[in-house]
Structures are given as C-alpha cells and as structure tokens.
C-alpha cells in the first residue's frame, strides 16, 4: 500500500508527525507498522520515522519507499534515491534552499512549513503542515484526520485545535493537487490496536499480576519500567528505579521471595551486572522474571539500534549450572502472551525466566487484533496457601521431589520458616557442602524442566505444509520472514518458517520432528556468528550450512529474506 519515511534533525518533531500519520492510517482501517531510527542523542543528529501501511497484517518494515518527507537537507541526501518511481518527495522549502536531486520520475512537493505555519498564527504548527501534506497526497478522510488532530491537541484548548486544523489544511491543499497513485480509502478499523513489543510485554506482565518491578533505565528496555510506572496507581505496582542493575535484580528477588510476582528489565550491559544474582535466584528457587532487550553490542555498542547478539549471553550468564527458561517472543502478540506466561512458568518451576527481545521488536508499533485474555489463567505452581500451611509439619522448602519442584512457603505464613540461600543447601535451606547432598540438589533442580514441553510450545511453524525451503529463525526476525512469504510465493517458492520460541531448554524433540533434512534450510539471525545455529548444532547435532547473519544493527527486511532465499535456491 504505502510506506512513508519522515526525516529531520533530532528534536524537530519528526516523531510526532510519524505517530500522527500512523494513527490516521490505522483509523482509516489499514494495518500500520511504524518504527524509528535515531541516534543516541537528544538534540542534533538525524532522526527518522518509518510508517508502513497495508490492507493486510504486516509484521515488519520494508525497503520500498513511497513518500519521503524531508524536514532537512540530510534526509534528502540520504534517502531521496530510495523513493520508488512514481513516489513523492515532500520537503521543507524553507529549510532546504537548493533542491539538488535528479529525479524526474517522482512527484516533488515543496512546502514552506514555517511560512505556512506562521500564516496560521505560529511556526510551531510547521509539523502539522507537513502532516497535512502527507494526508493531501493520500487524500485521507477529512473526518478521521481532524478527529485525530482534535484528540491529540484537545488538552491544549479549542484555539490550538482550530489552528492545527488550519495548518493541516495548508499542507493538504498543496499536496492534494499532485496526482499521486496511492489513495487511502476509508475502511472499518475493527477495533484493532497499535502496540509495540515493550508495551505488549508490560501489559502481559500486568495481566499476570506482576506487582513489583525494579530496574535501571537502559535503552531499549526502559519503556517497560515506564509503562508499569504509568499504571502503578491503577494496578498497584511497586515501581522502583534503583541505583544500578545489581540492586534492581536483587530487589526483585527479595520481593519475589515474599510471594509477589516480580520482574526486572534491562539490556545487555545491565544484564551483565545482574548475572551473579541470576544464579542466586535459581539456587534459592525464587521465581524471577527478567527481560533482556537487545541492542547492538558489544559493550555500549550501538545503543539505539537493533541486534540479536545476546542469545548465548542470556543462556549462559552466571557461574555454575542451573535451570533457566529463555523465551524469545517474535512479535508484539508473543511479547504479550509470553510476558504473561513467564510469570506462571517462573512460579511453576521456581527458577528464573528470561524473556529476550530486541530494539526493533520492543519499539516498533504494529497493528494487531486485541489480545484475547479469556484463556489466560494464573498458575502459581506449588506456592502454598495460608490454609495449607496451617496444618503443615516438618516443612522442607527444598524437599527432594520426583518432579524437582518443592512446596513453597513465603514470609508471613505459619510453619514454613526457612532461609533462602545462595549457598548450596539441604532440603531445609541450611548450608550444606556434603558431596551427595550437592548431587541430589543439582539433580533435583535440573529435572524441573524435564517436562516443560508438555505444557508449552517451544516451536512455532508458519507457511504451507508443502514447501521448497525452510527458514529457521528466532525473535523479531519472524516479522520479516512472515512478510516475505507472499513475495516468495509469487516467485513460485513455498517457504516454511520454523521459529524457535523457547531456546532454553531447547525443544530438541519437537525441532527434530519438524525439520525436514531433505529440503533446503536457511537460518537467519541478526548477529555475526550464528548463535541459534550453534545452539541447534549443540542440541541436535545438525549443522545448518546456510546461514544469513545480518549485523549492521538495522532490522532484517522481507526483501533481505527474499534475496537470501533466491540466492540459496538459485531462483
């Protein structure tokens, strides 16, 4: 349908134009995907936002560019060449003095943003003029457009709303004259929602009864803490910004020890600081939910861009051997449902659960059907009720059981006294360095997850039953692959996507059952070394020869997938 890129200096309101056009397109009944591309700067530097809208569900951004909106010259230099034939360039003729491009095949729409804004009354309306120009090209529905403006500026009073509408009209009228080939027809928006992965994950956590988050701000994870903070009053959530990530994870463990569902969220650097406590949670058998939202590493790396390069890190961080669950949701829906499940699993297995996301997944907004919460049931595992504990005798917090999971009491409950401990301990929790005791408790903890795949699906499969090629992926790479299926189909290629959603424990059996060794296989990851590829080989013995690793810190696009598949199949 249509892709729009809006670029300008940081702080120039590019993001607001993007969000507002996204809302208008969504209200017009389209499926919208938006993401931002900005350096780690507050002012200065170049920001861009991409808005992509379709008549059907979309899960990723694409390279094709239909409309470019340039608030500055940099945007033109960087992106004008990518505008498709018949596309349009809207640019601020106030800011860009000499337009220096050689494109006869596109519509060029100069708009004096500040000048027109001042005609309305104030240069602050410049962004709204730009927005109007986009709406004009696409001929968006007037009622929808003005309603969105109204709801955006309502708080600032009627006069501001009125002037914004006038400013929008200025831009609209100029662009309306162009005979742009794509027009937006109003359709029913069917009550769909537009949401990013971090918000979806946060809502999953709230639905799961998470009432405690302690965290330290770190891009791109911060919005999780912020979303919970926004809802602290209505949903009774203790939100604690801590002095560092070490405090964050230890506080969450202390909170979880009392029986509250608790979490922490960070990116790679913060996760490094949390490593020691992660092992403690596992040894003390405290349910802990951690979120690691990846960004381009190593070290501070490329903080505002995306990557999938911490998989091995979250799988192996912390000394010693202990069970942990690593879940890699692939889209906003999975962020929500797995965000919910994580809290059940942490309590059922009394061990840390790590959700691994990434910048693209965390911050790109997609349009999806409203979550269905009917089937979401709270399962607190072997957490004892006060009633159970009243009659309890000789309670052993780390009782050696067949399934490896012990009854759990929490402070405040009678007859359940014990010490949670980072030392190896006996069944009561008391420190023990006995050789056999260590073996017994290592084995006990290890067997906890033996049957996890009786309850959860470790692998998801998309695409036809008949296929020519298998794409193996984890995390946000799912979006680009799913979106590549129709184009591959057009090329006569039937692809099947195998998504590894639970990486630890690895769903070896299921993976083996699904993989067809006789058909071509391509594994795609957003890292250099092929981290999942290594995990697969380690668990199944299968060496996947064909690996596409992208590590430029920009998301994988459907076009990349198509190109890689064609290369592999020589088509």
């Amino acid at each position: 349908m249509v892709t729009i890129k809006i670029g300008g200096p940081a702080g120039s309101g590019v993001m607001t134009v993007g969000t507002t056009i996204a809302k208008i397109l969504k209200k017009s009944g389209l499926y919208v995907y938006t993401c931002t591309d900005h350096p780690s700067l507050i002012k200065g530097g170049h920001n861009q936002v991409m808005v992509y809208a379709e008549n059907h569900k979309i899960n990723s951004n694409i390279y094709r560019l239909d409309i470019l909106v340039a608030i500055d010259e940099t945007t033109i230099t960087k992106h004008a060449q990518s505008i498709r034939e018949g596309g349009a360039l809207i640019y601020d003729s106030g800011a860009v003095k000499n337009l220096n491009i050689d494109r006869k095949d596109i519509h060029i729409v100069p708009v004096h943003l500040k000048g027109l804004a001042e005609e309305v009354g104030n240069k602050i309306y410049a962004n709204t003029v730009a927005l109007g120009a986009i709406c004009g090209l696409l001929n968006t529905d007037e009622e929808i457009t003005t309603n969105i403006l109204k709801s955006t500026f309502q708080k600032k009073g009627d006069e501001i709303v009125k002037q914004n509408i006038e400013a929008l009209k200025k831009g609209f009228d100029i662009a309306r004259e162009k005979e742009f080939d794509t027009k937006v027809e109003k359709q029913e928006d069917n009550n769909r929602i537009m949401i990013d992965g971090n918000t979806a994950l946060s809502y999953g956590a709230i639905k799961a009864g998470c009432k405690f988050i302690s965290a330290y701000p770190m891009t791109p994870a911060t919005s999780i803490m912020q979303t919970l903070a926004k809802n602290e009053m209505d949903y009774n959530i203790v939100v604690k910004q801590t002095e560092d990530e070490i405090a964050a994870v230890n506080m969450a463990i202390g909170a979880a020890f009392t029986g509250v569902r608790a979490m922490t969220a960070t990116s790679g650097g913060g996760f490094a600081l949390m490593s020691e406590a992660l092992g403690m949670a596992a040894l003390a058998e405290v349910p802990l939910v951690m979120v690691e939202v990846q960004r381009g590493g190593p070290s501070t790396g490329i903080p505002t861009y995306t990557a999938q390069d911490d998989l091995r890190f979250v799988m192996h961080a912390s000394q010693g051997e202990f069970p942990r669950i690593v879940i890699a949701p692939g889209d906003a829906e999975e962020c929500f449902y797995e965000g919910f499940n994580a809290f059940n699993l942490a309590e059922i297995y009394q061990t840390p659960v790590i959700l691994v996301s990434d910048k693209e997944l965390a911050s790109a907004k997609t349009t999806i059907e409203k979550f269905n919460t009917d089937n979401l049931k709270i399962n607190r595992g072997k957490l004892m009720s006060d009633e159970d504990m009243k009659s309890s005798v000789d309670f052993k917090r780390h009782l050696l059981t067949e399934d490896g999971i012990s009854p759990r009491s929490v402070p405040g409950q009678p007859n359940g006294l014990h010490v949670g401990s980072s030392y190896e301990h006996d069944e009561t929790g008391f420190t023990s360095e006995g050789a056999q005791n260590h073996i017994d408790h290592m084995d006990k903890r290890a067997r906890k997850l033996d049957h996890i795949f009786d309850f959860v699906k470790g692998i998801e499969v998309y695409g036809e039953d008949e296929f020519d090629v298998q794409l193996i992926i984890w995390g946000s790479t799912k979006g680009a692959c799913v979106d590549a299926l129709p184009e591959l189909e057009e090329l006569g290629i039937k692809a099947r996507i195998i998504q590894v959603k639970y990486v630890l424990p690895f769903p070896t059996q299921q993976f083996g059952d699904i993989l067809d060794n006789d058909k071509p296989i391509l594994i795609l990851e957003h890292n250099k070394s092929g981290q999942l590829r290594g995990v697969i080989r380690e668990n199944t013995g299968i060496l996947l020869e064909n690996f596409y690793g992208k590590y430029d810190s920009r998301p994988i696009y459907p076009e990349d997938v198509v190109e890689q598949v064609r290369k592999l199949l020589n088509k």
Partner: protein
Amino acid sequence: MADIKDFQEPTHTNTWCPGCGNFGILMSIQKAFAQLNLDPKDTVVVSGIGCNSKIPHYIKTYGFESIHGRALPVATGVKLANPDLNVVVCAGDGDACSIGSAHFLHTLRRNVNLCYIIHNNQIYALTKSQYSPTTEKGYVSPTTPHGSIEIPFNPLAVAVTAGSTFVARGYAGNIPQLTELIKKGINHHGVAVIEVLQPCVSWRKDKSFDFYKDILYDVADEKFDTTNRSNVLNFLLEHDIYDGKVATGIFYKEDKPTYSDELKIGDKSSVAKQDIESIDISPLLDSLE
C-alpha cells in the same frame, strides 16, 4: 512475651570460631526479637556473605542469605513488597562499606523501614584476613604486606550524610546495651543503622574483647543531642573508632515518612498479598489508539 528460645535454631550447627563477637550480636538480636514479642513468621533476617552473614541460619525466623554486598537491595525488595514484615539486615564491613557501598547510600536516602546491623570487625574474615574498608591505614594484611594506604571508611558519618534517620553504635561485648539499640532500631519508623564493634578473635587479635574493655562509653550518659544532624556529623568525624575513647549509643534520630509510607500506589497494603486471579486489563487495551 516471647522467649529467646523461640528464636534459637538448635538444629543448625554454628560454625563461628569459639569466642567470636558474632555470638554476642546473635544473642542481642534474639533477645530483642523476644522482648519486642515479634512473630517469627512475620520476621525476615537478610544477610550478605561473610562470617557475619551466616546469622539467618541461627535465628528461627524467615531469612535470606544473599550474595556478597547485596543484603540491602534484597531486604528492600522484601520490605517494599510486604511492609507488614519486620526486616532486619546483617552485613559485614566488607558487605556494607565496600562491595555494597552504593546500596548503603541509596537505601538510607530512601528511608526504607528496616534495621541494618553492620558487623564491623575491621577485616575480611571469611576470606581469611585481608584488610577491609574499615581497617585503619597502615595495616599489614596478606594483600597489604607493606601496609595499607587508604584511610578507613566511616560508616556512621556516611550514614548521617546519606540521610539515615537512626544512627547508632553498639558493641558485641555489651549485650544489654546492644539489645536495647536493636529494639529501638526495629521500632524506629524508618531506616536504622547500627554499627557493631565486633571482635574477630581469629584475625584481629589486636581488637579483642580485652581491647574494647575500657575504651567504650555511651553518649546517652552525656546528654548527647541526637537531633542536630550537622553536629552529629562533626562528632562522628572527629571521634572515630581508631583512637582513644570510642563512643557508643544512639547518635542521631529523626522522624520522617518511610519509603513505603510515600509509595505512589493505589493501595498501600502489601502487594505480596494482593489477589491476582482476575486482573482486568481491558481499560489499558481500550486506551490504545
């Protein structure tokens, strides 16, 4: 009233050296708990790692022996999740003033309602006698064979500066006084820091019970003003624990709302006890455009 026996854990073999100062601290905590009539099920003793930090295993309440330096954040999590619990935290001078020093500062300025007992033996005891942040300058230890170079960390002066609302010093050899300090620290509505001079009979024979016998006095006997923060700070800076007479007792006390009192949350009762069965998130989803 509860009995001290209610808080003793006879089945857990104690592994402290005979004569260790930690025994006096243990007994004072148990006595304080008994005299305050605390319910063991509503009490949590949190520690870090070190000789001192074995203490939760010897007290019959809930407990958590965490990792080195992290007792305070774990305890903060416990207290913020369930403010109905009595939370007592034990840590060594290494835990408190070195590896966990950031948490020390920040827990105090938050005024989390807990009682923090620092077992100050001026040595890393569990790792066998390296100098600690509270060891005096020039001290010869395995890692400073030619004498340490740093000046010592003054935990109570730091506590006053960071905003602690209760600051006291006790001595492991004076159980009646220490018991009273701990009782007052627990009853204090806010964060209470109690530094305890703790003889380590194995590694600091120079700071034995004998050493402390005649040098301690209680500021309560001198009509000490416990309300003027800057005077208290001056006093603590001028009178450290290394020379001459060493002051004990309560130095500073202030009444202020605790972190839990001020928590920005709809319902301030324990989040650990709230029902989570059927949380309705439809308002959140409806608000998404």
